């Protein structure tokens, strides 16, 4: 039964996931095409200087991508469940309701994580061709909150979409609109390093948020 459930989740998100993963990889590749172009048209030392002392960020294109991808996957995964309240069918299966919801979350967040990981590994590999760790490590510290924003976006979108009452959907949306941009605000390279651990914990904890609206849904809150 679990296999069937996971297959259902895969059917819902597969195209969104594959398109997002493709766009993510192409974006990372584009970042480095631009790096190569800028180095060719200025000089490697000038480009290093630009990154080290003038606030240049060769990875800035990636800023909103994790959030947009997460939003698309979360809507693809959870919106069909709210049409005609289909998720109630899942709740009628002989499975633990919370476990079923967490399995849905785990599948969605897991596939999102894999696509982020692919982008991250490609970004790391290409970065290390052009730059030393002294430039690459602060870059990682700067893009980490953008990926955290992606997970936060996924968790809070799931919460909002599954919430049965419109009034509360708007309330949750307000909280999401206040919280997610905190991870996307402009900062110097490595500027986020003091808050990254706390933000990671907060975003990880927000994974449970789905249970709240799921609970309200199955209790028939109107």
């Amino acid at each position, binding site marked *: 039964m679990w296999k069937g459930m996971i297959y259902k989740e895969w059917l819902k998100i597969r195209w969104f996931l594959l398109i997002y993963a493709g766009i993510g990889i192409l974006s990372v590749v584009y970042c480095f095409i631009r790096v190569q172009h800028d180095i060719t048209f200025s000089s490697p030392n000038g480009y290093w200087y630009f990154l080290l002392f003038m606030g240049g960020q060769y990875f800035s294109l990636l800023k909103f991508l994790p959030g947009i991808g997460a939003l698309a996957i979360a809507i693809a995964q959870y919106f069909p469940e709210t049409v005609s309240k289909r998720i109630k069918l899942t709740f009628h299966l002989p499975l633990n309701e919370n476990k079923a919801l967490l399995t849905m979350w785990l599948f969605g967040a897991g596939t999102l994580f894999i696509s982020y990981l692919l982008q991250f590994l490609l970004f790391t590999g290409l970065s290390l061709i052009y730059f030393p760790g002294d430039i690459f490590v602060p870059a990682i510290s700067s893009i980490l909150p953008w990926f955290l924003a992606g997970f936060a976006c996924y968790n809070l979108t799931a919460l909002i979409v599954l919430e049965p009452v419109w009034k509360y959907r708007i309330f949750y949306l307000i909280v999401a609109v206040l919280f997610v941009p905190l991870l996307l605000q402009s900062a110097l390279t490595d500027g986020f390093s003091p*808050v990254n651990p706390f933000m990671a914990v907060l975003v990880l904890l927000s994974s449970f948020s789905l249970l709240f609206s799921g609970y309200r849904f199955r209790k028939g809150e109107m």
Partner: protein
Amino acid sequence: MVKFSRYILVVIAIFSLAIALPRLYWISFEKPIKAPSVFYSCVDNDFFMIRPADGGILTNSNGDEFTRDEFELKLPLNYSRQLTLNRTMPDSINGVEMDLHEISRNRSFFRVRPKDIDTPLPSLYPLFESQSGRANLEMPDDFFRITWRMEFLDSKTNKILEEKSRMFSAVLYNRGFKFPATSINGLPTTRKSCDEGYLVIDGANQLFHIKMIKGKPFVRKVDLPEGLKFKHIACVDFSDKLYYAYLFSTNHEVYVLTQYDYMLQKLDVAETHPELNEVRILGDLFNYTITSLGNGFISTTVLDKDFKFVDTYKESWLTKDERLEGKIAHLLFPFELKLTDNKSSYIRFFSAFHSSFLWLIVSLCLMVLHFIIIKKRKENVKNQIADLAIIAITGIFGFIAVNFFPNKFFM
């Protein structure tokens, strides 16, 4: 687990609201605090101020007002170009002939703000050729770092230049440098009059001057008094070429490091905290004026050219928190959270817990309001005690959070 998920959402909401609501409040109601600019007149030996808060009036320390022309005549070294244009520049001051070239050569301006200190710093720096024989400095192809040794990385190949790295590391080692470096300070730009390399603090808190002369390392250890440690070193490039840097010690003293003879000279000025206040040092033909601009005060000390104390001036005003809008903020919010602050370039938690406890009045009102809501919904108060406690502690943030994520199902 569902209850746990709700409290996580409440925490996220409180966290977000504690940042957003105070920010919205201050954007709406904050009034600018315009600090005066303080100058020292070598003509009157008195302090003169420009007061933007009072419509830009020009006064001295007694409060006497001046016209612009009168004001500029009192500060001939600050307005030498204007006075020359007006043909009112004095021929001599205090027996010293006024030569525009000399005035300009002795003029220096230095500023350090807390956000310049609390900022992400690079770990790679360019080491310029100090005696290239060229009029302009050229950016080198390699950048150095000082970890377990001094390493040069070629930006063209992204590889370590072994020979150069070994040569510099060996000289540093022979001069007693303890790897790694804890602080590398210099002017990593080609837009300076000449290159004087870097002042580097090593792992044993020793200070070294490192530069490259004709491709070879120049390393000089600076003798420091016992126990003296520096929290911030700012290298300067002034036309008088008297010293390399301003050095701020951990015991809040300020030093200059003189050029060529490497003497540390202490400035006769009260405790200076560049990590908390903006510090400006203005040099002219006769004096150095050191100004600390902090939250609600300005403090200016004048030193002579030997860095000995001449005079001091202090002025204070109401801080943001002491003004009416600050007191209203203390009433509305139990605390304020910020991720950014004008004293840091980092994103981190800057929290301000209000000590006045005025916010307890609002918290109490909100608890009563929440109690009425509970009663109206005909819910059991026992199930809502945690929510009431959240409102008591976090005030308006908690009230909004617990009502955005309702508790009415957990009975």
